[in-house]
């Protein structure tokens, strides 16, 4: 068993209490009067969040306003938190569409797999994080709510440009 011992060499000859305290006071006073403060005044000022920020979901729509989703069932399959509820429907021409598409924001871990797996680029995570609600039931986002979100969507990681430049 190796024991690592560090022999403390405190420069006793140079130690002082009173003068060192005054030096410390001078330093903290410098910070006291320094106009540069790091606090961000949150509701008024906000941080710029990154282009790959994964936040509140958003469902993109086609030109006629319906969801792009084709109810393929890939996203509920890939979802590790099992938070997507999808009930597929089919119209007269045989086109599949979601009858129910609910995302439980409580269960969601914001991994972004649903966005990555989506073949139609329909479901996206958004660059948005203020998703507090007053009631628990309001955290289950239905299709209407997902399509009516307007915040910018999260960009996917591009292997050709790994740093997002």
């Amino acid at each position, binding site marked *: 068993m190796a024991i690592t011992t560090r022999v403390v060499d405190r420069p006793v000859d140079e130690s002082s209490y009173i003068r060192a*305290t005054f030096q410390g006071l001078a330093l903290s006073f410098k910070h006291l009067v320094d106009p540069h403060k790091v606090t961000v005044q949150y509701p008024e000022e906000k941080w710029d969040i990154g282009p790959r920020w994964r936040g509140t979901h958003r469902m993109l729509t086609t030109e006629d306003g319906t969801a792009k989703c084709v109810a393929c069932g890939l996203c509920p399959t890939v979802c590790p938190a099992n938070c997507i509820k999808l009930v597929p429907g089919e119209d007269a021409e045989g086109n599949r569409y979601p009858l129910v598409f609910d995302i439980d924001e409580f269960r969601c871990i914001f991994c972004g797999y649903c966005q990555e797996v989506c073949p139609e680029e329909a479901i996206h995570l958004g660059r948005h994080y203020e998703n507090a609600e007053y009631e628990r039931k309001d955290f289950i986002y239905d299709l209407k709510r997902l399509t009516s979100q307007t915040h910018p969507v999260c960009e996917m990681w591009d292997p050709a440009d790994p740093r997002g430049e």
Partner: protein
Amino acid sequence: MTHAMSLLLQAANPQLPPTDGMFILFGLIKAGAAFGIYMLCVAYTTLAERRVAAWIQDRLGPNRVGWEGFLQPIADGVKNFMKEESMPGGVNKALFILAPALAFVPAMITWAVIPFASPLPVPGVGLIDMVVADLPVGFLFTLAISSLGVYGVTIAGWSSNNKYALLGGLRASAQMISYEIAMGMSTVCVLLLAGNVNLSAVVSQQQAQGWNVLLLTLAFFIFAVAALAETNRVPFDLPEAESELIAGYHAEYSSMRYSMFPLAEYANIITSSSLIVALFFGGWDIPFTTWDNLPPWTITKTLATMGMYVSKVMFFVFAFIWLRWTVPRFRYDQLMSLGWKVLLPMALLYITAVASMVLALDYAALAREGMAFRGAMLGMNLVFVVLVFWVLDRGRIISPAFSRLERERVNRLRAVAERSDLLTGKGA
């Protein structure tokens, strides 16, 4: 007849002391006003602490409630009153409830004897002293009452039925007793110069002789350190050392009962600052002028001196906060060593020196207000300041004797470490 005449004369002349009835009435008014203002100041010291702490740490601090956070203390008070009061199992109920009051009241009472402005002439009444109670034993009273403050803390710790709280309370009592002695000793020098224990007399002595901080810097230094320790503030906040004792003596308290302890701390800060100002910084004296010290007294003088006094006290309150956010906490053994092995002997030596000097100068029949007396005191003070701040405060570590690492021992240890792979971990 003559009595009635003198009463009339008093009433006519606002430069004479008031009649007994008026004295009592104005005493009550002063007590009420001082209580209100004091409580307000305590509340706003909490805000000052939070904001200064934030600025020192490059943050902004609470600035939302009201303009720049000026209603924050009120919001805090409302919050604390609305919170649930918890009563843990096994507490001694009577003492548990009494302790916060015991902590708070002494800090406030102490303030009653501190003069805060030049006397105020009230037309038709007489000259009102701007001190709540001008006790002849003024300073002894503050010493007696401030020692009572430890009861609140200790009883809070003991009655909580919690081992950390008890440890905090015990530390507080040990610490306060240790530093009380150094504090009392350091002020003996001031009383030697003033020849009186009445704080108004101490203030007028400083107006005549110059501020005591110039003549007795070392006494001021010891007093300030001991005052820091008495208020349980960093670097002496061992009783509530959060990393060791959760919150120390108030670990079991909640809501307004808890809030009384921080309030008591801030009340103590204001009282200590007021005492420092009264004893060492000339009280309400305005420096470089004698206009404010001489009768006839006017309302302008009262307001000006009160402004001076308030700004001095505010500076020291700020200094207390500033120190808190600068220096780290002492270790317990260092705390005790500092109190008993450094401050107390230093204070005793200093008393001896000052007493001998004063005695010698009095024998030489030098007037106390004279240049020669002041010059001699100033010279001795300079020697002591250089000695303590530059010579003695060098190459020493406040610590128990056995933990001191001598240079030779360090080298020996290092040699052992070099030889042994086990110790350095190189062989592993």
